[in-house]
């Protein structure tokens, strides 16, 4: 057994395919004569040119298969290729030190790798891996060696490698590669992110495994546990095979629901959408057959960076998601900064109660130029898909009206500039403040939809900090107070004939999803992995039957009573 660390979940069974990178470090420095300088420089130039072309191609193909964020790794490689102190420096040392192209490049690559690896930061060690990857690519071109190719297998394999580079996994054979094991690598490296996106189980940090297995050895592992077994005995293999069968069966059952409507037996049709954080999640949405996006958190664009994202950068991200989700709707939530989410480039006064402070729409209305930039980017993107725009943390009618006025102002600005903006777009309120739920009848007159953000609504409604571990039992979605508020919001929406959704975790919780369906909720937005199981559940239920639960549940007196009763009812829900 080889212990490692879990990097991507799933059960892997396959024959070992070993990948051992030949290290270049053993090679001696090669000197050249002054007369070959031009020839060596030309070799380097042509290797750089070919690497550049390859990278452009990889960027295009990964953008399609994995999304913008993954292709960004290769954009970074392009930047490294063009850094004046990298290849250009190596090129100069061919002449200055009379080194062969390979030696000059190797010296420079090793210098940066060892410098970055010595730094006390996971981020910089990941940059060392980038330099290594691009260095290897250039060396391959210089020596005429082919890249390690993992794109074409004919039977189930588990790749066992000393390490894997993003280049190597960028065009992995997803049909036959059943698992990935590396000796090196942190859990946050790009390769592990790609593995999770492709849903290929992965273990990292399995020491010395490459030298101890042979090609063709059977390997099994559970990516969640992080232990690899080589040549398992019959008993162990049976265990893994049956585990995998269970997982696959579930997968298969769910897969059968792809393309099916989210509809009850008696014809009540609802929308099952996904919550996403970046355009990269588009692949995941597709895989789980989401009917649009009910919550696109835009904070990712603003966080972990030195300055505000430009209007264009935002526009590109919104446009990508809107286009990718057609013909479904995408609800973009305007930035919800503040609370626990801070930005280094935006001064926010220290607050005693940040969750009750300047966050969401409050922050936007206090920083109008920033807000307007985002609204411009969103409106420009609206031309490319079906847009819903939603304001977070609204607690009063005035805030909604002010935000809408700004949106209109920006829309007119754009029209004056002859920039296309969608004629039909919907404006909604994220209901997460109890006061907003209580005045939902008023708010409903001024917007096109509600999306109930239950995660925060529970916290504010019960006055329970959801991060406080000792208060966990008090933070309950089953609290009758919470459910009454939710019901009130749904009724207000019905009265004004606008649609209403939930974008908190309860939308993917079978008990509560059925109750919400019975209450008349129109849209359920959840983590994409929950969509197909919930669709299956809804398709087996009768809406009129669920409607009859609502009154009874709302009359119960405590969270535990409600949870208990819903669990009981769930068993009888299937007709």
């Amino acid at each position, binding site marked *: 057994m080889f212990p490692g660390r879990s990097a991507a979940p799933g059960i892997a069974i396959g024959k070992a395919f070993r990948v051992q990178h030949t290290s270049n470090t053993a090679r001696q420095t090669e000197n050249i004569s002054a007369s070959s300088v031009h020839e060596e420089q030309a070799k380097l130039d042509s290797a750089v040119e070919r690497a550049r072309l390859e990278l452009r191609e990889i960027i295009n193909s990964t953008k399609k298969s994995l999304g913008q964020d993954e292709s960004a790794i290769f954009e970074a490689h392009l930047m490294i290729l063009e850094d004046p*102190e990298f290849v250009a420096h190596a090129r100069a040392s061919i002449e200055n030190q009379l080194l062969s192209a390979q030696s000059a490049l190797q010296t420079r690559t090793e210098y940066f790798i060892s410098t970055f690896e010595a730094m006390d930061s996971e981020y910089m060690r990941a940059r060392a891996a980038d330099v290594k990857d691009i260095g290897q690519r250039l060396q391959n071109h210089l020596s005429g060696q082919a890249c390690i190719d993992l794109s074409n297998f004919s039977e189930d394999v588990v790749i066992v490698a000393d390490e894997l580079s993003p280049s190597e996994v960028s065009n992995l054979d997803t049909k036959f590669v059943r698992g990935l094991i590396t000796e090196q690598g942190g859990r946050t490296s790009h390769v592990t992110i790609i593995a999770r996106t492709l849903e290929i189980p992965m273990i990292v940090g399995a020491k010395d495994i490459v030298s101890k297995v042979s090609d063709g050895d059977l390997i099994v592992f559970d990516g969640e546990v992080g232990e690899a077994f080589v040549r398992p005995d019959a008993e162990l293999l049976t265990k893994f095979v049956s585990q995998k069968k269970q997982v696959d069966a579930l997968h298969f059952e769910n897969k059968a629901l792809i393309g099916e409507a989210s509809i009850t037996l008696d014809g009540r049709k609802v929308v099952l959408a996904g919550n996403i954080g970046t355009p990269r999640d588009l692949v995941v949405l597709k895989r789980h057959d989401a009917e649009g996006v009910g919550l696109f958190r835009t904070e990712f664009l603003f966080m972990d960076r030195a300055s505000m994202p430009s209007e264009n950068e935002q526009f590109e991200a919104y446009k990508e998601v809107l286009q990718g989700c057609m013909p479904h709707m995408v609800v973009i939530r305007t930035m919800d900064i503040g609370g626990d989410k801070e930005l*280094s*480039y935006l001064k926010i006064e220290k607050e005693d109660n940040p969750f009750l402070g300047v966050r969401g729409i409050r922050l936007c209305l206090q920083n109008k130029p920033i807000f307007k930039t985002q609204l411009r980017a969103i409106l420009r993107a609206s031309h490319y898909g079906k847009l819903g725009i939603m304001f977070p943390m609204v607690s009063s009618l005035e805030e909604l009206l002010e935000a809408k006025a700004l949106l209109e102002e920006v829309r007119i600005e754009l029209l004056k500039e002859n920039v296309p903006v969608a004629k039909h777009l919907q404006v909604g309120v994220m209901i997460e403040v109890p006061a907003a739920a209580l005045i939902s009848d008023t708010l409903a007159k001024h917007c096109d939809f509600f999306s109930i953000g239950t995660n925060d609504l529970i916290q504010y409604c019960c006055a329970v900090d959801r991060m406080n571990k000792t208060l966990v039992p008090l933070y309950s979605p089953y609290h009758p107070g919470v459910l009454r508020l939710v019901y009130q919001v749904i009724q207000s929406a019905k009265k004004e004939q606008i649609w209403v959704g939930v974008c908190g975790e309860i939308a993917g919780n079978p008990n509560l999803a059925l109750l919400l369906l019975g209450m008349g909720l129109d849209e359920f937005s959840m983590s994409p992995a929950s969509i197909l199981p919930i669709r299956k559940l809804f398709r087996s239920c009768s809406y009129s039957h669920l409607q009859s639960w609502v009154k009874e549940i709302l009359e119960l007196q405590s969270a535990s009573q409600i949870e208990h009763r819903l669990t009981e009812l769930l068993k009888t829900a299937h007709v």
Partner: protein
Amino acid sequence: MEKQFVIKSENGLHARPAGVLAKRAADFKSSIEIQTSKGSANAKSIMSVMALGIVSGATIKIVTEGEDEREALEALEELLTSNVSE
């Protein structure tokens, strides 16, 4: 021309801030060097800037030389004092 700065950003001059700096530096014709107690680097090279491992609170000197040395120094000053951070 040259000027000293104290790095204020919490994470020093790593990652994105290094990239922002290198990109801005590349806009100028002058040579631009960052000098620290540990060595110096071409400010136009994100890799060299990152390799210096400049941490928060460190003092660095920026030396510009060339036809647009004044503009270059001013631009980087603006960047560094506007709290470049992650």
